[in-house]
Structures are given as structure tokens and as C-alpha cells.
């Protein structure tokens, strides 16, 4: 080989720069050194951009929650043995054998999973399927021989269901039952709000209902959304890619606004934090908000919005108060 740096060496330097930026803002001297390095080889800027993007992607690790336990994801000793998920992938036919089902699928005693306000948690289930619970959510799970069952009592959860045609995954929420053999979907039931179901991948069938008979044939496929009040028939509709993406940002600990009023935006933060965002001035409360914010940082939101509208954000008595005008009150 020619004595030219290998692309792997370049990656080593690129990640070292990004790790340094992750530690603290670069000094002027470092910035200059980085510029010189970038200009030295046509591969370096690309390697650096990729390293930055991967580092940005890891910001969503926060959404795993403080209780994240790598052992639940095939970590540490899991390295040696194939995960359940891989057993399933490779041994589809073998799943028919009851012995394998017992080992690979793990029958589970009923269990409840709950998150506190502001907490987001990814929970692996016995068969390798997962649920991501948003703030203030309660889900109960029970795996039987012929059915995987979960009930969403309140809150919002994203389910990734691994295929098992012999054992459907059933979710009960607000008196309705949804069933799938494989798919990914988000279900939300907040107090005083309609049931909201969004299918991300695969397919979901509405199997039971009130009133009887009214919704017999409802099938939801990828990018379809259904909202329903207690006694009305639920009618699904298509959701745009953009709507889907925004709707699922909470999984990365983020909230997106696209022209919602400041009052509505403030209310969204109330789901995630005890720190309220208060906007006493009705005119300011009607201003439209656009942007992407960290869900668990109402103070940061307050400061960003204050800057947007030439207002001030003041933290007092556990609330962020937004006000226009220069402190004459």
C-alpha cells in the first residue's frame, strides 16, 4: 500500500474531533487545527460529517430513560448467545415445535409497566418485541400460549411487534381491541382526549368495539391513523410521512410545533414536566410557535420562545413565565 492514510485512520481522527466538541466548545486554536486537517484530504470532510451525524443520532439515547439496562438488549453476557430475536429470525419453522416456543418465547406472568411524568422508557418484552412508553403511561402485559396481550390504561406507547402468526399481539385500550401478527404502531389515550392510533409499519386490525358491529372491518396499514371518542365509530385516514415523523418525535425526547399557538405549546409541555409554562398575556399566547424542542426542558423552551417573540422568560415558583415588554410589571 501507498503511505497514504487509510480511511480507518481518518475515521479515528474524525471521531476524536467530534468527541472533543462533545466535551466543550473548541478553542480558536483547535478550530484552526480542525480546518487544516479537513483540507488535507478529500475524504476527511465526509468522514467528519458522518461522525457528527452519528454523534447527533446518539442524542436520542436519552429517551432510553435512566432505567435503561443494556442486559435487556443482549448486552454483556448476551454477546455469546444469539438473542431471541435472532432465534426467531433464523428458526421460523422451528417455532411450531412447542418445546422451542417454551424456551424462545418465555411465557410471562402479568406485569405492569409505568412511567412517571417526564420519563420515557423503552421496554423489551419476552419475545423480543418492544414497547416505548411516553410520559405518565401505564401498560399491563400478559403473554399466553396463544396470545400476546397488552392493555394501555393511560398515556402513550409505541409498540414494535415481532412476527408470530400463531400468537397474535392484542392491545386493549379504551374499550377497544386491536390485533396484529407483526407491526409497529403508536397508541395514545390521554384523559379527556379521544383515542388515537397511528400505524407505522405492518398492519393492525380493530377486532372489538362499541357499539357492536359498527367497526367490524377496520384494518389499519402503515401510515394510517384512527381517532375515536367513546361511542363513535372510528374511521381511519391516511397520515402524511411528515405527520408520522412529527408524531413520533417524542420517542427521541422531542416535541415539534408547526404553528400551534403558544398556549397549546405550553400545554404540551405540561405532560412532560411539573414546571409549567405560563403565558398571562392573551395576545402573546396566540402567537404561532414553530420549532423542535427537548420535551423535558420547559425552561429551555421558554428562553427560545422569549427570543422568538421579543419577550422575557422568568423562572419563578416552579413556573416559566413568559412576558412581553421590558420588565414593567
Amino acid at each position, binding site marked *: 500500500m501507498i503511505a497514504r492514510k487509510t480511511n480507518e485512520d481518518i475515521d479515528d481522527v474524525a471521531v476524536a474531533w467530534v468527541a472533543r466538541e462533545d466535551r466543550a466548545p473548541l478553542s480558536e486554536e483547535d478550530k484552526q487545527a480542525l480546518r487544516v486537517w479537513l483540507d488535507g484530504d478529500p475524504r476527511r470532510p465526509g468522514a467528519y460529517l458522518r461522525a457528527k451525524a452519528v454523534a447527533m443520532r446518539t442524542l436520542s439515547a436519552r429517551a432510553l*430513560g435512566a432505567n*435503561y439496562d*443494556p442486559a435487556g438488549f443482549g448486552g454483556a453476557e448476551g454477546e455469546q448467545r444469539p438473542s431471541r430475536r435472532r432465534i426467531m429470525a433464523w428458526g421460523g419453522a422451528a417455532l411450531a415445535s412447542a418445546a422451542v416456543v417454551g424456551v424462545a418465547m418465555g411465557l410471562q406472568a402479568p406485569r405492569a409497566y409505568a412511567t412517571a411524568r417526564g420519563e420515557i422508557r423503552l421496554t423489551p418484552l419476552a419475545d423480543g418485541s418492544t414497547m416505548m412508553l411516553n410520559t405518565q403511561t401505564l401498560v399491563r402485559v400478559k403473554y399466553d400460549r396463544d396470545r400476546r396481550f397488552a392493555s394501555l390504561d393511560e398515556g402513550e406507547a409505541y409498540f414494535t411487534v415481532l412476527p408470530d402468526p400463531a400468537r397474535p399481539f392484542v392491545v386493549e385500550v379504551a374499550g377497544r381491541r386491536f390485533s396484529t401478527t407483526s407491526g409497529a404502531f403508536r397508541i395514545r389515550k390521554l384523559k379527556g382526549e379521544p383515542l388515537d392510533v397511528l400505524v407505522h409499519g405492518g398492519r393492525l386490525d380493530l377486532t372489538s368495539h362499541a357499539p357492536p358491529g359498527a367497526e367490524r372491518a377496520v384494518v389499519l396499514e*402503515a401510515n394510517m391513523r384512527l381517532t375515536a371518542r367513546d361511542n363513535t365509530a372510528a374511521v381511519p385516514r391516511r397520515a402524511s*410521512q411528515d405527520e408520522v415523523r412529527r408524531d413520533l418525535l417524542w420517542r427521541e425526547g422531542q416535541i415539534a410545533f408547526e404553528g400551534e399557538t403558544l398556549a397549546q405549546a405550553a400545554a404540551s409541555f405540561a405532560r412532560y414536566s411539573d414546571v409549567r409554562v405560563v403565558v398571562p398575556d392573551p395576545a402573546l399566547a396566540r402567537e404561532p410557535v414553530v420549532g423542535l424542542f427537548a420535551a423535558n426542558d420547559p425552561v429551555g423552551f421558554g428562553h427560545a420562545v422569549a427570543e422568538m417573540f421579543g419577550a422575557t422568560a422568568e423562572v419563578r415558583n416552579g413556573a416559566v413565565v413568559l412576558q412581553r415588554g421590558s420588565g414593567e410589571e
Partner: protein
Amino acid sequence: MFNFSDERTRWFMNHVLPHEPRLRAWLQGRRSAVFDVDDVIQETYTILAARETVEDIRNPRAYLFQVAHSIIVHHVRRARIVSIRAADDLEGFDPADQAASPEQTAIDRDELQRLAEAIAAMPGRMREAFILRRVHDLPQQEVARRMKLSESTVEKHIGRSFKFLIQRFGDSGRPGSRASRTVKAETAVFDRAKNQRGH
């Protein structure tokens, strides 16, 4: 002359990074003595960093393959010796083949799960540093204090964790790539399920 803004980085993260395994597999299928697959990938990304705007790119995936293709052409020309193989490949290029179906994109998007698994697969100290920094969101300085390490050691762990993830997320054919096998297996499972539904 390069754009490394948060906006460009986010665009790259959302629209380019997810396609790297396919890009690498495609390049490996065209491997020749004339170019190194990972050189081409880095140079391709350099072109993306050098663009003034990316707003006009309607199909980032197709564009990505086009840029990679043009870089191969450049390498092949520079090498002067054009193997029959390389020449054939240049003719037979159709970026339209590389467009993902919407469903694939939807499934590829469930990335937090993959991140959780990737962290679990990191070696011990690196994993500990990464979890404190990213999952618990502590500054590197605080991570160093808790792990009783120097700040520069923590910085190294964090840097190596990024490299670990670059390789894990970008891999589809490097020898011993656990990540790629798992991804393929998962995709296969979803594909099978789709077929059973009669799609």
C-alpha cells in the same frame, strides 16, 4: 466551503446515514483494484458537506448513489487502466433501482431499538462512559469524576464509541459484522410476514 451546521448534520443523519449499508453493499458488488469502498463512501460524503444547499435534493437516496457512482468514475479514469468489469458496471448503473419502498423506510426508522442494542454490545468501559454521557446526559467532566478517569480518557472513550456506532450502523458486509446480520435477519422476518399477508 464545507457546511457542518446542525441543520446539514441532521439532514445527513435522516436522509443519508440510513442508506449507508445499502451503499456499501452496492459498492462492494463493484469492487475492483481501482478503488477502496470506504474511500469512496468518505469522498461521497465530502461532496454532500460541500454542497451549498441540500433543499433541492428530492430523493437523497438516489442522489447518494449518483454521487458515489461519479466518484467511482473519477477513480477509474484517474487509474487509466479500466478493467472490463469496471467499464461494464459504469454502463449498467440505474439509480432508480436503489429507491426504497416507503414501508422499508418506515421499518428502518425504528432506530432507538437499534441504538439500545448497539450500546449493549459496546465493550465495558466504553459502554459505561457512553451511558453516563448520553443516556444520563451528564457532561464529560462529570462522567470522568464518576468513573474516576481523566477527562481526556473519557473523551477517548466517547470518540471510540462514535466509531463503534459508525461501523455498526454502516456495516452490511465487513467480515464479522454482527450488526449487519441482525439487520438482515430482521428485515427478512418482516419480509416474510409481508408475504404471508399476500403482498
